[in-house]
């Protein structure tokens, strides 16, 4: 290796694998984040609330994508783990008097721990068992939220008031959005960092060819453990942020349907990619809103809106899996490459 070290000057510098693939995406991401940060301050409460929900779901989806999309460990309890994060953070802040930032971090840690508790036994088994174990986790945790009143105060959930950091109160929802955005951007960067590091390669390797991965020196159990812990850290953090967004940690926000929605989110968005998490979150938050709007305009009988919405959602899930099983992220990537070639071709060569 030593003697060849000098002659590598010829090829492009080894700077690690890129964070984002195309320049268009890199500039686009910066513009998007800055645009959201500034633009959100001028929007009405309804739109800020939608944006906040999308951003929090993106963060949660990164965790699930890391777990299920990249490492191939399917969890059908992501919402319940978000609930663990939300209630733990509320407990740390209100009952224990910890500052919000510490509580958010600890909520992530606790959620990772609870995740391991449920996932650990099935990490040695095939994925089917993990699906069933996480399903059981969803049922058990939800029941726990309804019963453990020392933690959750009422079966419906507990109010948490307004988020505050070092005496600054986020009483304007647009300000709270900035906090959420900051966490999600940080979460996104960490997600991309993990993917382009050795951990990302070993997760993909273990999902695609476990035997080969093992012979390449990858420890299956350890990698799965790390993926499990990291994925649930995201869930806990996102759940806690969601609690202060609604200013009420509602038990119902973490039910089975929400967990299913999270899985649908990453599949329709695109497995294993950041753009998948974001596109999926936009889809999962906006679709019911749009369907409700359309329903209110078109239908006389308002009681059928909810079941119609459910049916259309189910149909979209089936159709996506049949006709675009790799999600929106793939089409998105094609679009990005196309735009890159159109916009940057002149000055790159």
């Amino acid at each position, binding site marked *: 290796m030593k003697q060849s070290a000098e002659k590598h000057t010829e090829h492009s510098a*080894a700077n690690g694998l890129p964070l984002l693939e195309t320049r268009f995406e890199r500039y686009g991401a910066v513009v998007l984040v800055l645009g959201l940060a500034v633009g959100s301050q001028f929007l009405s409460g309804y739109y800020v609330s939608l944006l906040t929900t999308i951003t929090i779901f993106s963060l949660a989806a990164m965790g699930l994508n890391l777990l299920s999309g990249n490492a191939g460990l399917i969890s059908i309890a992501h919402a319940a783990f978000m609930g663990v994060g939300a209630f733990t953070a509320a407990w740390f802040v209100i009952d224990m008097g910890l500052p919000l930032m510490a509580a958010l971090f600890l909520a992530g840690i606790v959620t990772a721990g609870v995740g391991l508790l449920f996932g650990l036994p099935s990490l040695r088994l095939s994925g089917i068992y993990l699906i069933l174990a996480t399903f059981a986790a969803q049922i058990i945790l939800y029941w726990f939220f309804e019963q453990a009143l020392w933690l959750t105060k009422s079966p419906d959930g507990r109010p948490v008031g307004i988020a505050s950091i070092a005496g600054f109160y986020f009483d304007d929802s647009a300000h709270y959005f900035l906090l959420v955005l900051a966490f999600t951007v940080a979460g996104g960067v960490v997600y991309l960092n993990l993917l382009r590091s050795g951990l990302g*390669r070993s997760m993909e390797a273990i999902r695609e060819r476990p035997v080969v991965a093992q012979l390449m020196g*990858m420890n299956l159990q350890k990698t799965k453990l790390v993926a499990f812990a990291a994925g649930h850290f995201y869930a806990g953090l996102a759940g806690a942020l969601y609690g202060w967004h609604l200013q009420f940690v509602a038990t119902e926000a973490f039910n089975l349907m929400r967990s299913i929605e999270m899985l649908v989110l990453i599949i329709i968005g695109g497995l294993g990619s950041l753009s998948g998490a974001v596109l999926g979150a936009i889809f999962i938050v906006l679709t019911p809103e749009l369907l409700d709007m359309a329903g209110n305009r078109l239908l006389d009988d308002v009681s059928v809106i909810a079941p119609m919405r459910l049916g259309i959602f189910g149909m979209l899930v089936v159709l996506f899996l049949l006709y675009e099983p790799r999600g929106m992220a793939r089409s998105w990537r094609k679009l990005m490459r196309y735009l890159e070639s159109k916009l940057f071709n002149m000055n790159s060569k």
Partner: protein
Amino acid sequence: MTDAAPVHNSALRISDLSLSFGGVQALDKVSFRVEPGTIHAIIGPNGAGKTTLLNCISGQYTPQGSIRYGETELTRIRAHRRIGLGIARTFQHINVFTEQTVLENMMVGGHHRLRRGLMSRCLYWGRWGCLDEERALQREAFELLERMEMQQWRDLPAGELSYGLQKKLELGRALMAQPGLLLLDEPMAGMTEHEKKELSGWIAGINRDEAITIVMIEHDMSVVQSLSHFTVVLDFGRKIAEGTPAEVVKDERVRKAYLGED
């Protein structure tokens, strides 16, 4: 990664290796020795136990008997630790990671030398980040890809390469592990004559220049004769002959069991 490649002068000693799958004796008291720095060919008809033998060395199966590499008893070492001892392999059927780029596939080969933990991978940059070892690994991959004349496909998903190139990539990935012992399972299968010739030259080259010991399964007798220093013949899980390729092809039993079939 900046330290010099470890000096490999370990012999591989296989003694009384037996393995059965539900009544089928896949390996039956196989013993032989591979001297450091040599190319050893394993030949034999289909189902003779060749791949099973390789799998025992790389760790997918736990056989009875002993496999010693240098001073280490391999049967006691877990599979994912064996690459750290300098044992790398390729597979009979293509086993590249199709969705990852050629570069990433290569970097997977050097994975076992990465030391950084979860935190530094989250950070990536800076003093506590893992960028330093990522760059070192990436640089190695660049160099090896260049030596293999594969740099133009570097950023392509490996699944989009031709069959021959995927085979070659798999060899490259194994070399990224900086092995002392390289196990090749039919590296030439399905290749064109031209590709075979090129690859033979390559294998002879890495054996000569980097003193890598090679154990390979191969069906093409002309390749075996031109490449290998020593040949072991398996049939129904038993070793029926060994010696130089020239000696082995003259052996009566070998002609009957194996060459007669061709």
